[in-house]
């Protein structure tokens, strides 16, 4: 039987509190039985502390460790590295609770707690997460302090105060380190499995798809423009991908391995901006019509869309540049021409016939486009909840239902033009964006998803044609939200979204401000490595090692100097005991006459010394000493004696 190191009661409580605080946010991700096991271990440890039971035998602990280890591996699987590591650590962590004999065991628990608190941030990086983890760090530090606090004066709140006094000055130091310490890339590749099934555009488009997105007010991406101003609403076409192949019902985005050849000469003003894309689970990157170049690691495909090397699973930033209008273009190759003309062999015969009849009258691209748009403007209506379409979806839409939204219009227009022999493609992306005036950026949300067409004009290149504009021009000029808010399916997935309450001005302001805060948080904290160089150059001029060292040293010494000043000058509240306080006062008065009380001198002897030097004070100082001793060593009658004692001290001071 090992000797049991009894933590003080506050130290034990702090350990338990710390474990709960660290466990809480992880518990939803862990296998359900692991938090239960931790709580079981907590209870057991508490029971041991109360003396109701003893620590488990080593064989029991061994069995528990083996079972927990196997259980974790079986329920998580080896594929998810970080989750598995965290769960295993947690299993060890909870079992270690049953093994706190010495201070060293408590330290192991506390250090692992620091690590586990940090791993929480791998799974969530919002401002709330960060605040919670900061709170947990304070609690863990309190637990660490409680282990070292005096056993003679155990106190529950003192460690918390000590911890706050340690962590608060550590924060500015942390900020300095955060700003200055250079970031390096990953040392080995360690993928993080993130939540799947993101909303957003997919690589197929059947006419009803886009309406699925109007149900969501989730953010797709945010954009900051270098000139600080957004382009006009009618130019806010964010291209993501093109759908080139039609199988009779659905349009598919074909993978195109060839890269975009930029034309030799380009004109038109360049618009530079920074796009912060939310995880979409898809590789495409949205850019304003038309992007001019692809920054590393993106590729610009032949259809002039940008593609990331892998699916986007975390929030990412790209610095892009686009031209809103351009008159230069590369001629279409024969293969590309073929690609943008191909249609299924049969089906939708009525639409084909219509296209051919138009072509027979006037084969020019301009007139074909104009006739199609005129048709839409004359007879069609815009709705988010159109009737279902049959097998010949294009025919049904064009001749029977005649109602729908962007997907329907874009796919039918593309079909008609291709049937008439004009290369055409559908573009998937977003149209619009809401300007946030607090941090000057544009937010584009899922319900702003849009589909439109691009038509090849001989001599002009690809020209954007948005058939929806012919039916509902307000969709382009106004925000999607204004247009859609009357539609039944709008925001059905997020009924409590603040976007819904945009007409209430304070909610709107609050929403904008919150989003702005999130955006700043992302830009300046979560993706700080992208801005570190610029910031340091702004702060230090040319960045040299010497300057970095100074940049670290000067703020450090300032903060530490401030802490040291506070520590060394810090005053404890005056002695609380009025009896001692009075004695101190008395001794202070005598000090100047060389009659101060010597360290450790008994009060009786001190009184004698004073009486010898000042016989006139002998009676009153004698009374003081007698009452003092009564107060200290006798029992009963304290309030009365204390009153008399204080009166005697006052009298003595007065006589002096």
């Amino acid at each position, binding site marked *: 039987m090992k000797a049991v190191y009894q933590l003080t009661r506050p130290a034990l409580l702090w350990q338990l509190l710390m474990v709960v605080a660290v466990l809480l946010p992880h518990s939803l991700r862990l296998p359900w039985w692991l938090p239960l096991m931790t709580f079981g271990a907590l209870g057991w440890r508490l029971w041991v502390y109360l003396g109701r039971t003893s620590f488990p035998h080593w064989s029991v602990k061994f069995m528990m460790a083996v079972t927990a280890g196997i259980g974790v591996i079986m329920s998580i699987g080896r594929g998810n590295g970080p989750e598995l590591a965290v769960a295993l650590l947690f299993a060890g962590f909870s079992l270690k609770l049953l093994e706190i004999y010495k201070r*060293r065991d408590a330290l192991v628990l506390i250090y692992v707690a620091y690590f586990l*608190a*940090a791993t929480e941030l791998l799974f969530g990086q919002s401002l709330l997460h960060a605040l919670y983890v900061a709170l947990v760090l304070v609690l863990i*530090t309190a637990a660490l302090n409680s282990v070292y606090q005096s056993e003679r004066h155990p106190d529950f709140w003192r460690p918390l105060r000590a911890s706050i006094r340690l962590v608060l000055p550590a924060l500015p130091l942390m900020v300095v380190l955060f700003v200055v310490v250079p970031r390096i890339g990953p040392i080995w590749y360690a993928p993080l499995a993130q939540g799947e099934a993101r909303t957003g555009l997919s690589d197929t488009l059947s006419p009803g798809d886009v309406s699925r997105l109007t149900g969501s007010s989730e953010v797709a991406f945010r954009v900051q423009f270098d000139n600080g101003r957004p382009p006009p609403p009618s130019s806010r076409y964010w291209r993501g991908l093109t759908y080139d192949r039609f199988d009779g019902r659905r349009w598919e985005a074909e993978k195109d391995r060839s890269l975009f050849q930029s034309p030799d000469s380009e004109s038109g003003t360049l618009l530079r901006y920074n796009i912060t894309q939310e995880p979409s689970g898809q590789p495409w990157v949205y850019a304003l019509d038309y992007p001019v170049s692809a920054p590393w690691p993106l590729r610009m495909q032949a259809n002039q869309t940008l593609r990331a090397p892998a699916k986007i699973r975390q929030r990412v930033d790209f610095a892009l540049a686009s031209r809103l209008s351009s008159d230069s273009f590369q001629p279409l190759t024969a293969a590309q021409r073929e690609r943008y003309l191909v249609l299924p062999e049969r089906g939708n015969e009525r639409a084909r016939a219509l296209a051919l009849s138009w072509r027979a009258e006037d084969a020019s691209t301009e007139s074909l486009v104009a006739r199609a748009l005129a048709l839409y403007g004359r007879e069609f209506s815009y709705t988010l909840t159109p009737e279902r379409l049959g097998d010949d979806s294009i025919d049904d839409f064009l001749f029977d239902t005649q109602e729908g939204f962007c997907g329907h219009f874009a796919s039918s227009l593309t079909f008609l033009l291709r049937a008439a022999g004009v290369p055409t493609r559908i573009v998937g992306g977003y149209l619009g964006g809401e300007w946030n005036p607090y941090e000057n950026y544009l937010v584009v949300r899922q319900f702003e998803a849009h589909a439109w067409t691009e038509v090849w004009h001989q001599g002009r290149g690809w020209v954007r044609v948005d058939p929806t504009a012919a039916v509902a021009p307000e969709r382009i000029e106004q925000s999607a939200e204004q247009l859609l808010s009357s539609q039944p399916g709008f925001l059905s997935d997020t009924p409590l979204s603040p976007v819904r309450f945009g007409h209430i001005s304070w909610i709107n302001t609050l929403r904008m401000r919150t989003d702005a805060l999130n955006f700043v948080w992302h830009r300046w904290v979560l993706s*700080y490595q992208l801005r570190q160089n610029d910031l340091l150059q702004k702060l230090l001029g040319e960045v040299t090692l010497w300057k970095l060292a100074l940049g670290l040293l000067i703020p450090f010494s300032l903060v530490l100097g401030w802490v040291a000043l506070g520590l060394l000058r*810090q005053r404890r509240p005056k*002695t609380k005991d009025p009896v001692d306080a009075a004695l101190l006062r008395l001794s202070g008065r005598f000090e100047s006459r060389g009659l101060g009380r010597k360290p*450790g001198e008994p009060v009786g002897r001190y009184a004698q010394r004073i009486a010898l030097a000042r016989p006139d004070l002998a009676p009153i100082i004698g009374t003081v000493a007698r009452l003092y001793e009564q107060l200290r060593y006798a029992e009963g009658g304290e309030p009365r004696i204390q009153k008399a004692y204080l009166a005697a001290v006052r009298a003595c001071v007065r006589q002096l």
Partner: protein
Amino acid sequence: MSERWSRRLGARARRWALGRHAPARSLTLTQKRIFIFPTKAGLWFLFAALVILLLGINYENNLVYAVSFVLLSLFVVSILHTYSNLAGLTITALSAKPCLVGENAEFELLLRAGRRRNYEALQLSWVDQTPVSCDLIDDSERRVRLYAQAVERGWWRPGALLIETLYPLGLLRAWTWLETDLQALAYPRPIEGGLLPQGLGSGERGSVASGRGSEDFAGLETYQQGMSPRHIAWKQLAAGQGLHAKQFVDHADEQLWLDWSFWPELDTEQRLSRLCYWALKLARQPVQYGLRLPGGEIPPGRGGRHRHQVLRALALHGRAAP
């Protein structure tokens, strides 16, 4: 091997630290005296911060970087806290009680907070002795009793005083070595043996003397207020006979001499030890005893003060006065 080395290194460091300052009765700790260095736990803490930093680097997670930086900063801030947990403390040597060689002498120190600050979880110890922990929390001064084993008779010093602290986070240890001017008197180690030549060790005594004393039980009397509670006759009280006090008397004793020349076969130290044994034995018996040493004699007497005088003479025999 490594332990021996670290001990030797420690001893050297101590000698160096002590050599810088003269012993004093009272002194205040300042940065000239306080040393500070990370503990093993502190190095592990830094290791934990490093592991978290690696996590941050590998997942390019700036918040994890921040956690690592918080830990590093905590370490730096706690340097100041640990240091200030010693700085400004005033240590005053108060007194030392005599003891026998081989026993622990009690030393009393007074700790006083500088500028009314809190000091928590201080450890005080003499070299290689068990430490005593102490705090100054809401308390401007505190007496501390420390014990050290006496090795040799005569006046002796307990060696250097180590004051150390791990507070607040155990990451660093701040310590200081002080040489106090406290010295304790060690009486010779009593060694049983021999007989007093007159054969009086067994204690024949004279007639019962007058007066109330505290030595021998003489009878019971009714307990009255003010009598020492130690003299209450619990047995009688338990038997329901009422509250009585035991009455003690001192005897008017015989006079005995402890003489240096009693045991000529022993060497000096052994002789002192035997004399010490007999002095202690006689002090517990109702006799008056005196001491004759080559350098002088102490006339027979009784009581604590006399006993101390006798033992002190034995302790200091042949030793120069301090």
